[in-house]
């Protein structure tokens, strides 16, 4: 049974192709249909996850704040995304008169394309990788660069002061957080010896009965934290949601968007978040690897999506707690804390590898990472003078 479930998607695809071949369909159309099916399922799954996430986020936020969250549309409010979708489609799409119409229209498109393209290289299951690229990680960041262009286009074309400030903040944030993001990702790639995501996942196989995931190594844990923080910044989620800082910028670069264009931005942001969660899971949480070999009977793609939903859930948990960073703290944090920590983790990973991956390696990398953390955070808190204050009282 578990074997069947494991290869169910691949078996289904071959069955459909076999059926079509039976009808004498020419070869190149078969390839087209195969590609279409893979792309269709990928986008379908992630749109489904987006719909589920848009309601689960509001319910988790609500429960953290001791209220119910949407529970009117459908059982436990699960049809809320349908209602939101209809609302977004039927809402009037207002374009400001002085807006640069072409660029204003193209911005959501340019935002949506990279979010969907990026799904191509994530290894969803044992052999369920839509596109087998041997430079998959590099592809991820190359295509991901398109979102910055889209945010700028949105901000500039809306011809609105809030949008321009929002766009400027978004570009500054995305560029300065792309650096530590790439370095943290390359650390995992370096240790597993290849830029291909499926190879990285294989390299995190079970060591003995313990899961061999990178997050359980000292350098891996720190690289995972850095990657997680930069993932929050890349997908403009709290505490880095400066581009659409409600309290001062109304909605930042999205101020002048309404109706379906806003829904496209909203969808692109969520799918981008899932994609970067997927990469985080691939690099540090062992992709489709089961936590314990004994649990191998559960199909691999279930593990992958379970971990992705867990990481996305933790992002909502962080959103419920942390306030927004100010722009100079955010930039200072990236360049003066995350980047040096990224280089140090790179070094620690190398030491771990060359010290034989055993306890000696652990000690070496732990020492390096610990020393760097203490030094950097001391400098950081000294400059921000975060002292604990004591207050006098008078009778």
């Amino acid at each position: 049974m578990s074997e069947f479930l494991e290869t169910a998607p691949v078996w289904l695809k071959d069955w459909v192709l076999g059926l079509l071949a039976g009808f004498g369909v020419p070869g190149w159309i078969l390839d087209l249909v195969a590609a279409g099916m893979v792309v269709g399922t990928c986008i379908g799954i992630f749109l489904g996850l987006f719909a589920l996430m848009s309601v689960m986020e509001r319910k988790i936020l609500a429960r953290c704040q001791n209220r119910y969250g949407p529970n009117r549309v459908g059982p436990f409010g699960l049809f809320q995304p349908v209602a939101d979708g209809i609302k977004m489609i039927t809402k009037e799409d207002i374009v400001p008169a002085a807006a640069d119409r072409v660029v204003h229209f193209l911005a959501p498109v340019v935002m949506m394309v990279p979010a969907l393209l990026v799904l191509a290289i994530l290894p969803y299951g044992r052999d369920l990788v839509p596109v087998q690229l041997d430079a998959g990680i590099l592809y991820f960041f190359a295509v991901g660069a398109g979102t910055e262009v889209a945010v700028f286009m949105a901000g500039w074309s809306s011809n609105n002061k809030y949008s321009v400030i929002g766009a400027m903040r978004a570009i500054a944030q995305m560029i300065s957080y792309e650096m530590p993001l790439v370095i943290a990702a390359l650390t995992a790639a370096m240790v597993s010896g290849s830029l291909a995501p499926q190879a990285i996942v294989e390299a995190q196989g079970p060591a003995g009965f313990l899961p061999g995931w990178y997050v359980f190594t000292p350098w891996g844990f720190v690289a995972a934290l850095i990657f997680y923080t930069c993932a929050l910044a890349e997908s403009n989620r709290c505490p880095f949601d400066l581009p659409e800082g409600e309290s001062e910028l109304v909605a930042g670069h999205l101020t002048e968007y309404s109706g379906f264009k806003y829904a496209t931005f909203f969808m692109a942001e969520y799918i981008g978040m899932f994609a970067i969660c997927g990469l985080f899971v691939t690099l540090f949480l062992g992709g489709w690897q089961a936590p314990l070999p004994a649990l191998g009977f559960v199909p691999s793609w279930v593990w992958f999506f379970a971990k992705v939903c867990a990481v996305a859930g933790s992002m909502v948990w962080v959103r419920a707690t942390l306030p927004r960073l100010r722009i100079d703290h955010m930039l200072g944090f990236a360049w003066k804390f995350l980047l040096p920590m990224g280089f140090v983790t790179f070094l620690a990973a190398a030491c771990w590898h060359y010290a034989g991956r055993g306890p000696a390696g652990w000690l070496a990398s732990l020492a390096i990472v610990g020393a760097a953390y203490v030094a950097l955070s001391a400098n950081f808190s000294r400059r921000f003078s975060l002292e604990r204050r004591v207050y006098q009282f008078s009778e």
Partner: protein
Amino acid sequence: MNEQKTSRWSESFAGRLLSGLRFPGAGLVKGLAVTARNFVGSYFEKDRLLTELYPEQRPRLPENSRSFPFLIYDGNDPEAGMRCVSCKICEKECPPQCIYIVQDRDAAGKALKRPRVFNIDISVCMSCQICVEVCPFESIRMDQVFEASSYDRFGSLVLTKRDLLKSNEYYHGIHPTEAAETDARIEADRKKKEAAAAAKAAKAAETAKAAAEKKEAPAA
């Protein structure tokens, strides 16, 4: 100069463990811990969730709650049992001036102790309850109906005498203790008036008797 009082959260194990942490990321972790505690708490500790699911769960209004004024009538005939004698004190005292009273006159034009028109514009009324305080005849009280919205702005937001008049039993339904006190006061006034009337009648009887004796005395 002393630190503020410690409390349940910091004495609990998680609180002590977390407040001990001093590394730079500790504050964020403490914040996350409290949010998680609330997330889990909202499923188990029922008193955390205060939201009332309004249309399904009717709100339990406390007894003193007030919305808009209404007129009280005794017995079962609204017109006859109406307590209001259109003395227009409430019309004068109402801060936003939203009460409009026209005194009723009989065929001969003599003023009657009853209002022909008694309108309250509830779009102007700020339910401040001053009309209830100043009314000497206990005839106006605050209702608890809060679903008074309507589609047109003017017509249905002006409550006429017919809409305002409600029975004393209804009054006992919504404000039991206050209604009981009001009835007790009215009972006391009535008894006092009767006693006064009886005393007056007795006095009148004596003067009449005295006058009669005075008439007989000279005659005799």
